[in-house]
């Protein structure tokens, strides 16, 4: 236990480095995708090059600027109402965990939903937001809620929120562009083939394969990272509360509770403390979260 603070410092630094690498990877991926699409559509490579980079950068800038707003409105979340005792106690818990982590107090939101869930978003600790569902407030006791908030606070402390929020946007954009491109190819392929001649057919095939694989690749990279960060946030959250049992009990309750896809769950899913989808979609390789049983086991063995 004694060496833990040093460890946290170390992996915060490592996570920040990872974040930069992932964001750059996403820019490159988005750029290559636009380039490949341009090539197939028969646009001159120079023109695509000149256009693709600013478009990719601009898109990521837009995602970055509007990410908080779009996540909040997708989830239909609203600021806490201090008149309601449950919600007041939630904002108290957030304040306490922020003090334990030595971070500025995030804004607190509530999402009206029967599910037990919570998420954190923002760019940096100073503009972070923690949101819990009203179901979580009703069904979790104070110790369990503290565990959940500790987990979210660790995402903020480990600078996970930026990369999670931005990659959610970029992964979505890549999927969208790839889909549009594949559809458009049906109409324009013949024409571009005529212009380029047979010699370029291999390049063309590579470009098409790339367009098909890009969304899968971007998603898998992101998922692997996101699962690793969930474990880390569990461990760091337990270190903040000094009580792994609280989060373990909360996860058990989440496991027993049947989720019913709250509003905007597709957009917000990777940000939640646990997967909001129905049971069948949990625990597959497409899952953004590690299996609940494994998380509970790790918490109990701390």
């Amino acid at each position, binding site marked *: 236990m004694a060496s833990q*603070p*040093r460890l946290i410092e170390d992996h915060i630094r490592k996570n920040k480095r990872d974040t930069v690498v992932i964001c750059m990877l996403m820019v490159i991926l988005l750029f290559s995708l636009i380039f490949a699409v341009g090539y197939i559509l028969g646009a001159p490579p120079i023109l695509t090059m000149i256009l693709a980079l600013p478009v990719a950068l601009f898109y990521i800038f837009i995602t970055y600027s509007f990410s908080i707003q779009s996540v909040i409105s997708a989830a239909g979340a609203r600021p806490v109402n201090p008149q309601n005792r449950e919600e007041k106690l939630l904002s*108290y818990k957030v*304040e306490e965990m922020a003090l334990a982590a030595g971070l500025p107090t995030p804004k607190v939101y509530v999402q009206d939903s029967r599910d037990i869930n919570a998420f954190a978003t923002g760019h940096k600790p100073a503009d972070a937001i923690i949101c819990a569902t009203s179901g979580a407030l009703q069904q979790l006791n104070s110790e369990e809620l503290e565990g959940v908030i500790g987990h979210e606070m660790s995402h903020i402390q480990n600078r996970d929120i930026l990369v999670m929020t931005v990659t959610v946007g970029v992964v979505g954009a890549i999927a969208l562009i790839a889909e549009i491109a594949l559809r458009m190819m049906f109409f324009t392929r013949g024409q571009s083939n005529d212009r380029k001649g047979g010699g370029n057919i291999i390049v063309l095939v590579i470009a098409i394969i790339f367009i098909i694989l890009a969304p899968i690749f971007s998603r898998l990279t992101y998922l692997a990272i996101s699962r690793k960060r969930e474990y880390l946030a569990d461990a760091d959250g337990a270190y903040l509360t000094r009580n792994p049992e609280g989060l373990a009990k909360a996860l058990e309750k989440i496991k027993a509770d049947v989720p019913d896809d709250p509003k905007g769950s597709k957009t917000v899913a990777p940000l939640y403390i646990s997967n909001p989808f129905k049971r069948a979609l949990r625990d597959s390789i497409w899952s953004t979260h590690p299996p609940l049983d494994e998380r509970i086991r790790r918490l109990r063995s701390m």
Partner: protein
Amino acid sequence: MDLTLIIGLIVLLIVVVVLLWFFSYYNRVIRYENRIDNAWAQIDVQLKRRADLIPNLMETVKGYMNHERGTLEAVTNARSAIMTAKTPRESMEANTMLTGALKTLFAVAESYPDLKANQNFLQLQDELTHTEDKISYTRQHFNDSVLQFNNLIETFPGNIFANMMGKKSREMLQIPEASREVPKVSF
């Protein structure tokens, strides 16, 4: 290129690297130290806030708990101990005293249904518990920061720089003995 120039360049490079290393180390020490001081300032703010809530609480319970003079006095005494505390140690001791006294008061309040239904009382109880939790979490952060700072300046090679900077290891905020006893409640 002649040999002396190469050696000269290597020496210069080493000097630059050592200097950069020292600067980054220096900044880290200062940052960690500021974090400790900031954590203490936070605790202080919470202690004051807690002490400020007590008169309201007294005003609220006065009408109901006139017969619990001892309990009420213990709370008032602990409050003035917080107000007059000079060192962090004294502050923490007074805070522990107040926590114990409040625990007794809230336990006694259980037998006054009228008081328990009082909205004002409930509000104060929530808020006092909240400030108590905030103090204990900030103390935890304070101790984490002290541990980190001490690790930095006591281990090699940090200890050499720390000596040059005249930095001494800091003391953690221990929980005073008294708080480990369960407060006695007599009805």
